[in-house]
């Protein structure tokens, strides 16, 4: 399910830096960071899509003895109740990509609603929403996530929504400032002069013009969401029956003897590397896209 939701995004990401962005030097688009990042993301997406083909085991079901060593049947052994670790690893990709896409979509939708739209309407709506965003920016994120996460109990959805919510303010600020600059331009006032309402202008002119920034914000927040979700699960928040890399790490490091047995290499390491590479992949793509899209970078270089 996660795979389906993230698929169109993947396509969009690859389509954006296409040949129609002719203003950009070719070397930027061919940046190795972008290639590596997209490659890694593609790999994670593929694993998430075909997770059930990669392993015969259900990641939630007990399929062997407790703490088995790696074997042909269990490539990464089993955890304490005897669930297959490899199955948890591949199905964990689904969780991470779902969290990434849903949270980042929420964040960017919120940023459009609270950053771009008020800036377009102007007046009191803009100043009120701007104040609100500045206030939200000042809230410390991780402590807030921990508090709400622990109060909300065993819910994965709350975590996802909250991560997305935290992404609204920083992205709204960036998009708002860009919108304020765009609104001064002729084509926006022309469109408004011909009677285009805020929503029409938003859809017809602003979203395309802001597209690159929205994309960069999306990618950056997706990476952050993966790291955050894993971190929260690592702390023991969220759904304890879920499948997640952070939860794997949480369980593994709860083993008192984890460092003194080879378990570490097939339990902690794969889960930790999976989080790292996914986050790195998003970061690579974000960094590679940013200089080619962010007008401020263009000016300075």
């Amino acid at each position, binding site marked *: 399910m996660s795979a389906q939701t993230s698929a169109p995004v993947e396509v969009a990401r690859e389509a954006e830096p296409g040949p129609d962005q002719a203003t950009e030097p070719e070397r930027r688009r061919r940046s190795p960071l972008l290639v590596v990042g997209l490659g890694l993301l593609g790999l994670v997406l593929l694993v998430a899509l075909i997770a059930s083909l990669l392993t015969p085991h259900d990641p939630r079901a007990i399929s062997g003895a407790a703490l088995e060593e790696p074997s042909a049947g269990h490539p990464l052994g089993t955890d304490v109740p005897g669930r297959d670790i490899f199955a948890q690893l591949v199905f964990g990709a689904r969780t991470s990509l779902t969290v990434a896409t849903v949270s980042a979509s929420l964040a960017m939708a919120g940023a459009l609603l609270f950053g771009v739209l008020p800036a377009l309407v102007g007046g009191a709506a803009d100043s009120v929403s701007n104040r609100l965003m500045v206030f939200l920016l000042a809230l410390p994120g991780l*402590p807030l996530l921990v508090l709400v996460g622990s109060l909300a109990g065993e819910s994965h959805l709350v975590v996802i929504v909250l991560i997305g919510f935290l992404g609204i303010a920083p992205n709204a600020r960036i998009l708002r400032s860009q919108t304020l600059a765009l609104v001064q331009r002729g084509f926006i006032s022309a469109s408004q002069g011909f009677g285009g309402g805020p929503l029409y202008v938003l859809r017809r002119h602003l979203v395309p013009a802001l597209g690159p920034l929205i994309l960069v914000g999306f990618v950056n927040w997706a990476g952050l969401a993966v790291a955050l979700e894993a971190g929260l699960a690592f702390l*023991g928040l969220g759904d304890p029956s879920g499948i997640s890399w952070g939860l794997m790490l949480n369980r593994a490091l709860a083993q008192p003897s984890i*460092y003194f047995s080879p378990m570490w290499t097939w339990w902690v390491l794969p889960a930790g590397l999976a989080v790292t590479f996914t986050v790195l992949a998003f970061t690579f793509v974000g960094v590679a896209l940013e200089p080619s899209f962010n007008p401020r970078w263009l000016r300075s270089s």
Partner: protein
Amino acid sequence: MDDHREQRGADGEGAGPRSIVSPRPGEAQRVGGVARESPESALGAAGGVEGAPRPPDEGRRRGRRRWAGAGISYAVTIFALVTLNFLLPRAMPGDPIDALLAQGSSGFVFGEEARAELEEYYGLDRSLAAQYGQYLTGLARGDLGRSIVTNTPVWDELARRLPWTLLLIVSAALVSTVVGLVAGVHSGWRRDRPMDRALMTMLLALREFPPYLLGSLLLYVFAVKLGWLPLFGAETPFSGAFSPVERVVDVGRHLLLPLLVLSVGLTAGNYLIMRAGMVGELGSDYLLLGRAKGLRERRLKYRYVARNALLPLVSLTAIQLGFALTAVVLIERVFSYPGLGRLLFEAIAVRDYPIIQGAFLLISVGVVTINAVADALYRRLDPRTAP
């Protein structure tokens, strides 16, 4: 001038939530770029379009009003956090008593009578406003309630753990500032050389490593395989019998790995901002003059250019203390370091809500306060933003 200040405020506050796990490269660059950017080029940036040129007098008055405004906005944020801490548990589905006495804790309530007694004890039979008043007056006296598990006052628990966390974050801020400064100066001075690229790639990639993986990796290598450093804790048990020197060494050995992991996360930001500052100064006339005078390269690099590029780093270091305060939640768990983060983790495991709320309040108010100090510090230090 006004543009400049407006922007600084926006991005400075922006460093808070972005830094939940790690500030992103672009963000750090942006903060770095902002500090030395001239108002003319600020058009694309936050709030850049609003400010029109003003007579100097009015700018001065506006500046003073901004000081007050910033103070008020931080105070409002802290008040909101305090209120959130009160409201969130009550807004969640379920009865607070059920939540307080969640499964696993020792305080399971039998019968309606005991429940009514508890409700009265916690003041839950009163109106929300009355409860809020009680909460605020309690808070003013430093009363954060009692731990459900150990029944000790929450404040005592926090105070016992706080020194370890402070030791960790302050030393990490120092280390990362020094390392970031030296690396940034070096990198920016020789921009686009292989060394610059290598440093940039390495620091940015290292930062994306989740602290739990990095920490676990270091523990495995240095504590288990090599056996050089202790595996957990902040001191050897019963180290009271050690001589003072031995104790310092012992604490240092325990501190080393958590410090390293936390510093790795912080260094990249310092490095980027310092590098950006250096690059921004490179074309300056004074540099040309210095060269013409025949000043030595080293002197030019550190005494002249780095000094001019240093300013943003000062406030970033302060902001990073706030980031470090949240990052320790993850790091202390990996190293079983007995600070606030570890306390929070232990409390989550048994759903000890008073402790969770107390730690949340302390950490989040700490972060906001540090950000406010950083903001004020910057305004004081930078003559361009001082009123």
